[in-house]
């Protein structure tokens, strides 16, 4: 305000500079994604065009039609959904029990358990890859989606326990004390008193764990032969011939997989930011 009166030239220079920066940041963040969206609507023959002509070339839904006619992709969506939902459901159930114990109870060895959970949450997945692979083979679970549900617990459980514990700590204690005085068992207290209060936290944590499971690549690539999840399908998307990289279709498949995530993230953006900071900063 002061500067506007004192030195209008400098003020407007600063404003312009600031908006230029905003524009650069927006372009940087959005262009790769928008270019992928654009490509998904272009015919394969038009990919050779110069950028300006490419932008104005006629649109087509052909790539999307091809993607939805691709059996591998459709099956991949199914397997990804099954695996992610399974892992998240188990993690939320186990995780809320554990978070209740860690956030509300005092007992010996608690910090030890917290350290173990933190250690597992920074676990490099590669450290268990060989061990898990031989186990999955032994139990005849190779190419079985249950193997992925099971192995994804390695990152979904520590994450849910960690974030939910920090939420449980913030819930005022009076709520369950009343239930305890009335003689309700801990499980009952958890389900009928704490769960309703924890609902937003459960949704946020579940969503973040779902995104992680949906995007996982290393285990999905290693433990599945033919029943590929969506990231593996997209990474190996091939066209009619071996030498043809169907970029239009790859981008269309990528958009199909990403847009639901982006919508979820935008709808829950406030919760997600609080979930991320609870998971990371309080660590």
């Amino acid at each position, binding site marked *: 305000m002061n500067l506007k009166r004192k030195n209008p030239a400098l003020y407007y220079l600063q404003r312009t500079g600031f908006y230029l920066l905003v524009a650069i940041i927006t372009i940087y963040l959005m262009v790769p994604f928008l270019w992928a969206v654009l490509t998904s609507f272009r015919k394969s023959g038009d990919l050779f065009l110069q950028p300006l002509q490419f932008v104005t070339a006629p649109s087509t839904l052909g790539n999307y039609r091809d993607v939805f006619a691709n059996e591998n992709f459709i099956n991949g969506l199914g397997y990804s959904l099954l695996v992610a939902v399974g892992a998240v459901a188990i993690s939320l159930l186990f995780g809320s029990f554990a978070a209740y114990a860690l956030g509300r109870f005092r*007992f010996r060895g608690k910090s030890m358990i917290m350290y173990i959970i933190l250690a597992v949450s920074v676990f490099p997945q590669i*450290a268990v890859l060989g061990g898990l692979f031989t186990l999955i083979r032994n139990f005849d679970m190779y190419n079985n989606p249950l193997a992925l549900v099971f192995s994804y617990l390695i990152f979904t459980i520590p994450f849910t326990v960690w974030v939910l514990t920090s939420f449980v700590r913030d819930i005022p204690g009076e709520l369950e004390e009343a239930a305890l005085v009335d003689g309700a068992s801990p499980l009952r207290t958890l389900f009928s008193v704490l769960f309703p209060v924890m609902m937003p936290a459960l949704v946020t944590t579940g969503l973040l764990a779902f995104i992680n499971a949906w995007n996982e690549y290393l285990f999905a690539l290693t433990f599945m032969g033919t029943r590929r999840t969506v990231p593996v399908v997209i990474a190996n998307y091939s066209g009619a011939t071996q030498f043809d990289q169907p*970029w239009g279709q790859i981008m269309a498949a990528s958009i199909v997989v990403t847009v639901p995530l982006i919508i979820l993230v935008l709808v829950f953006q406030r919760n997600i930011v609080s979930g991320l900071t609870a998971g*990371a900063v309080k660590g």
Partner: protein
Amino acid sequence: MTTDATPKLAAPIRRRGIEAARAQQALWLLLPTLIAIALVAGYPLYRTIFFSLFDANLTTPDERTFLGIGNFWFTTAEGVQLGFLQDPKWWEAVKNTMLFTVVSVFLETVFGMIIALVVNTAFPGRAFLRTAMLVPWAIPTVVSAQMWGYMYNDSFGLIGRGLLGGQALLANTDSAIWALIAVDVWKTTSFMALLILAGLQSLPTDMYEAADMDGATKWTQFWRMTLPLLRPALLVALVFRSLDALRVFDVMYVMLGPVNAGSTSMTGYARLQLIDNSLLGVGSAVSVAIFVIIMVIVVMYVTAFRVKFD
């Protein structure tokens, strides 16, 4: 059941009884999680460590011979070096992973800080930018790898053909690592910006008003107030990002393929040995090495920041 005896006991003893009961209940609540962690992390990790000491093939893990540290370091009588620590490809992977980690985490911190500071100022369109920030973060890593792979393509790509006039950026190992860093920076700067933004929003505003009164420039305010106050949040974000970067796999594997990923990331090298070459012993040994590297860094972090749990 002993519960019917408790009402007669004196108060302190009864309280101790309640605490013991609570401790037992806590254990039951924790049991499913502890069993799950033991099954998916503990036991497989033990097996990985176990196999790292054997010469074993992935398809026939039961026909194994004990090697001790042979998978790590072993020279035959003829002078053939078989340990993975003697493999130049491993060291190339280590070098590339370290370069990748240091450069991308540094750039993410700087860009994340700039974006967070911009989003933290009031201006029309701020809500939009805040939303746009979440887009790269929400995109699956494999998808962003394919998107950038397409942009780097020398005959179709916006960057490969448009900016560089038909250079195959990914075909050359020296330029590939920088191309991969660019992908990671684009993908995860948002995460860094989000964490820094959360830190910025918890800073007291009256302090800045006082600094404005005293005539401190925005530049001084940033270096003398914002940065020191932001230090804890910043350090945590830095460590989380570095650990992620050290375990990087998807980007390299999708953009370079198994063999080149093997000399670009430590995880890629481990998987190449373990799965593509079916060398269960060597692959497990590499996995153990990566595990140790990461755990050492975590322990350093926990002690340096004195993380405590009650």
